[in-house]
């Protein structure tokens, strides 16, 4: 486990990923939100998991003004920090690279977000329904953004 100084994490991320990081917000005590470019997700997630030994907690899909947002929650178990990678997806083509090949813990939640919001996870090993089999048609997504 690598213990890092959280005062320098925003600078560290800027240094490593430059324009892929839009902004870093210290939300509360031990809680950070990092807004990232969606194309850089895999690289940044890999940095947190591999180099900083973070644990993947879960991801949250949300509807926002311009489409969808996904928040990936990571935990630093050495000091209780929760770092959240937040990325925006376009309403017309909501898709993002899957983390399931990087970390198994992302497998189920990506399937869940897919079936609820209709967000496509590229290269997911098995993007089938997890929780709503038989409840909605394959192209109907219950939590998806209302059209119009």
């Amino acid at each position, binding site marked *: 486990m690598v213990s890092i100084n959280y005062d320098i994490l925003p600078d560290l991320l800027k240094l490593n990923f430059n324009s892929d990081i839009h902004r870093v917000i210290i*939300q509360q005590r031990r*809680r950070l939100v990092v807004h990232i470019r969606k194309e850089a997700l895999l690289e940044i997630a890999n940095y947190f998991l591999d180099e900083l030994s973070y644990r993947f907690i879960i991801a949250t899909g949300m509807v926002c003004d311009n489409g969808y947002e996904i*928040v990936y929650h990571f935990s630093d*178990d050495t000091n209780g920090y929760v770092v959240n990678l937040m990325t925006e997806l376009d309403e017309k083509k909501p898709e993002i690279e899957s983390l399931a090949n990087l*970390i198994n813990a992302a497998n189920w939640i990506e399937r869940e977000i897919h079936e609820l919001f209709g967000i496509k996870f590229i290269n997911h090993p098995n993007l089938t329904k997890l929780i709503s089999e038989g409840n909605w048609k394959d192209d109907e997504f219950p939590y998806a953004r209302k059209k119009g």
Partner: protein
Amino acid sequence: MSTKTVIPIGPYHPLQEEPELFKLYCEGEIVQDIEWETGYNHRGIEKINESKTFDQVFFVVERVCGICSTSHPFAYANAMEELAKAEVPDRAKYIRSIIGELERLHSHLLWVGLAGHFLGYNTVFMWSWKYREIILDLFEKITGNRNNYAMFRIGGVRRDIPNAQIPDIKNVLDTLKPKIDLLTGAVMDDPVIHARTKKVGILSKEDIINYGAVGPTARASGIAIDVRKDDPYAAYPLVNWKVITSEGCDVFAKAEVRLLELYESVSIIDQCLDKMMTLKEGDIFIPVKNIPEGMSFGRAEAPRGEVFHFIKSDGSNSPVRHKIRAPSYVNIATFKKSCVGQTIADATIILAAVDPCYCCTERMAFAYDYFTRRKIMNGLDLIKISHQKTNDLKMKM
């Protein structure tokens, strides 16, 4: 020609937070692969909460799981208080930790009983469920309810534990300690239990990290993660206790961790009660008027592991988005690793080892031939072959 058999376990477990159907693909009696379907009891709680006020959400999240019905309100309260920047009074912190630890006691005792039952030790089952009653009676005394205690609110707790009641509670805990000794001795010293659970259902450190497993499942593989220590909340930083780990990685290690955690829980409750005696009665919450706009992330250590709640608020009186991650969501996925290559007789105890609230499974589990779809085994048969294996071992020893 070898016959491939599919053994479905599930799907309906109304008492579990996440009912699921496990399909064990077996060749002979060895499990070759496993698939699952989940969501049979998906109640859309996250969506329901978007139409509830922040105060009402407590009663909904309390019903996510029947066994850890305080862990979800705990994590939710932690998230809301971070968002509202509310500092909970010390007395409320102690009461919260007492309720949380009593819950861990009754949940672990329930697990020990079920694990004993699956192995064919029905005496252990009877004992531990009998002693669990003591905890449930204590809950009734403190909160008025044996389950779903409705103790939490934003800014504190709803009911005080009067100082006059504290000696009685301590007496009850004192009577519980020898019972835990008895149970621990019965499990730790029995050669047959050793033979049935050691080197069974192995989960390496790498597996735990890869699947993101939490709680006793992770701690039994030598990974010392515990939200109570890592991200301290409530009264946990104010009392002395230690995180229990084991390097065994198998089912026995999971039992060991849970049994030793019983002692830690009793000690935490004891210390909290002592400290409450020095505090003013009635000082159990601070009023929180407004929830500001923003995001918040709350965690709590449930008996099965970390509970995670994410709240997004727009400044109104209900959440815009509320994400809940129960520990079983990540722990159950480890079954793919721990069960493959093991025998069907061990499958029940391996699944039970991650504590996915297993009591209803035996009514629903059945096996059928992969090709003819003819039922060949039901849940009781599965338990029976587990019992048979224990009996065979007893005969040999």
